[in-house]
């Protein structure tokens, strides 16, 4: 998540600010009444709200969803989802991988890295919660869950060997 600055507005609510890489600043004023203001700040005077759009609670939710507020859709492009301190990653099984072709039981990925495979995805379909007898076929995709370091280790094992 990006760093969001939070400022109390006594008697009104809370203001959240986000600075974009391009140097713009956008904000949301969360009123105690449930009303939300979407604020765009001036490029020349970054403290001035040059545009402020009032949204009802419902409209705010809708806009949030459109902007990708729901955690499942958030980072689909890089195939990594963060849920608090858990990471889900889609890893393509490389032919060069030392564990390609092995069954899940043989690969013992969970024991070696701490990360578990929750699904195997192939062109013919996907196997959710695969049993130990399922094979890690090269070219297919393994959906790996764990803390970031564990997922990283599993990705290294499944992907091309680090050179």
């Amino acid at each position, binding site marked *: 998540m990006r760093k969001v600055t939070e*400022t*109390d507005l*006594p008697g009104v609510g809370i203001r959240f600010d986000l600075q974009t890489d391009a140097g713009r600043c956008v904000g949301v004023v969360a009123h105690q009444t449930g009303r939300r*203001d979407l604020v765009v*700040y001036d490029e*020349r*005077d970054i403290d001035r709200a040059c545009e402020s759009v009032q949204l009802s609670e419902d409209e705010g939710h809708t806009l949030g969803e459109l902007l990708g507020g729901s955690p499942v859709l958030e980072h689909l492009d890089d195939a990594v989802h963060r849920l608090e301190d858990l990471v889900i990653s889609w890893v393509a099984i490389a032919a060069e991988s030392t564990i390609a072709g092995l069954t899940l039981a043989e690969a013992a990925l969970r024991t070696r890295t701490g990360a578990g495979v929750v699904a195997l995805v192939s062109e013919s379909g996907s196997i959710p919660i695969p049993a130990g007898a399922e094979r890690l076929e090269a070219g297919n995709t393994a959906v790996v869950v764990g803390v970031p370091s564990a997922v990283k280790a599993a990705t290294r094992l499944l992907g091309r060997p680090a050179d």
Partner: protein
Amino acid sequence: MHAGGDLLIIELGALVLALAVVARLARRIGLPALPLYLLAGLALGEGGIVELDASEDFIEVGAEIGVILMLLMLGLEFSVRELIDNVRRSTLAGVADFGLNFPPGFVAGLILGFDPVVAVLLGGVTYISSSGIVAKLVADLDRIGNHETSVILSVLVIEDLAMVLYLPIVSGVLFGGSVLSTTATVAISLAAVVGVLGIAYVLGDRLSAIALSQSSEALLLTLLGGTLLVAGLAGQLNISTAVGAFVVGVALSGDIVSHARGLLLPMRNLFAAVFFVFFGLQVDLSRMPSVAVAALAIAAVTVVTKLASGWIGAARAGIGKPGRLRAGAALIAHGEFSIVIAELGIARESDLGALAAAYVIILTLVGAVLYQFADSITLPSRRRRRVLGLGG
């Protein structure tokens, strides 16, 4: 109905209708209506164009209710916790605001030969900005999202809290006798304020739940009755009715707040107008010329000191120069509290009324205009960028 009663109704009708015209006018020219109600009061009062007689008693009671409703609704915006957090966060801005804006009034009072207690009152008049008028200006100009707005609101909250201590102290001093009995009165009233705030903190939720009712009629009567009772008792204890009403508002929390706001807003608007008119009515217009110079001078000084205190507070919050200017300009408007304070001293110093009325009108109009056009004021270091900005 007897003839006197009819006359009262006729006068009231004409007065409220006149205020309606003022409110429409204010809206058209983009100025806050409250100082214009005060102006209307001046015109209708002693030595004014028309003198109101029959309705004056009623208006006086209405004005009292106006203060109580304004402060109740102000208190509703905050909880005790929020107030404490805010003071902790913005102590410096609050101290700078007091240090810059109390002395001008106090010193002016001494120069004008008022007695020291009245000079302290005049210091209070110049110190306190109008939460009501400023908050409305910010909302009307769509500047709630601006970064400096948090600074403006914090300073206003600290000022309102300062009033919770200031008003009991000055009323104690004004109405106390000997030094000893005055000290005792002040101590008792401060203890009462702290005690009530403590009760509000501990029992606020429960009291709010008891007061809450499905029937909006029952809720309105409960709120109004409870607040008037507490405010009246506070007045009796020299704590000031305004502080009493504010504390009731702070104590209420939860679901009741949004209901209360909706129910009280139209009443507040009516009686706040009556409050400003009444203060204008009390002022003897013939005193105006003799206080005009002093009022202008104090106003000129405090425009600068308020600009400075907003500037300092905003700079500390890391806000750029245009934002600092807006914060300063926003704080210039004075209103309800300045008048509540001035009213305390009218009996001691009759000129204080005329002086405060002129001061509030000048500052509020100047403040509203400055805040509105703060962005078109060219600041030295930004000149080039601004000029370029106009083209785009």
